[in-house]
């Protein structure tokens, strides 16, 4: 299945893009998708456990993904 991965702010700068698509086996989790992202150049600048969101809701790495899901890797937020 294909999953869209969204990157923002410092993470988008680190990986040089704001979104990418990863192909995963059925039953894969948010953490599995993150592992693929870690293979990208610049990903060594990601922390060990970045915040994740699936379809705009905060999610744990164990959350299963479905085809077409949007996985966001969320840098430390700094609103206000």
């Amino acid at each position: 299945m294909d999953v869209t991965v969204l990157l923002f702010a410092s993470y988008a700068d680190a990986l040089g893009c704001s979104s990418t698509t990863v192909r995963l086996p059925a039953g894969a989790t948010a953490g599995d998708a993150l592992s693929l992202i870690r293979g990208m150049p610049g990903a060594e600048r990601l922390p060990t456990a970045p915040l994740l969101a699936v379809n705009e809701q905060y999610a744990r790495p164990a959350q299963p993904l479905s085809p077409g899901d949007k996985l966001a890797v969320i840098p430390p937020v700094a609103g206000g």
Partner: protein
Amino acid sequence: MRTALVRHAIDSASLLAEVTRPANGAAVLFVGTVREMNDGRAVTGIEYTAYESMAARELDAIVRDAAAAHDTDDIVVEHRLGTLDLTDASVVIAVGHARRAPAYEASRWIIEELKRRVPIWKLEHYTDGTREWVNAGTGAPR
């Protein structure tokens, strides 16, 4: 109740007017502004970006929770995105309530939750021409 992410100057007086009603004995207005110094570095401006669809959802959820917890529907929050200059308002929270204590509490809770979980980021611009993402080197907030 109303929340918005905006790309124009926030009119805090109009937000205050939105939560002002005869039933309310208090209105609390919080205005977050761009400060000239951060961690000892001279700031010239801040560029705010967001995961906009999720930020809108989170902000809305926070305000709904605050409204339910404090028994008032008179809450309006606007957060600005884009490039802001010193003293510009980045966020404005207006809370109207029959009583001042819950108005203050709701206002404080909303800004703390916003800072904890709404996916918005700041790229600070410094007087020496450099730019840096705020909190980029810190751990996850939750």
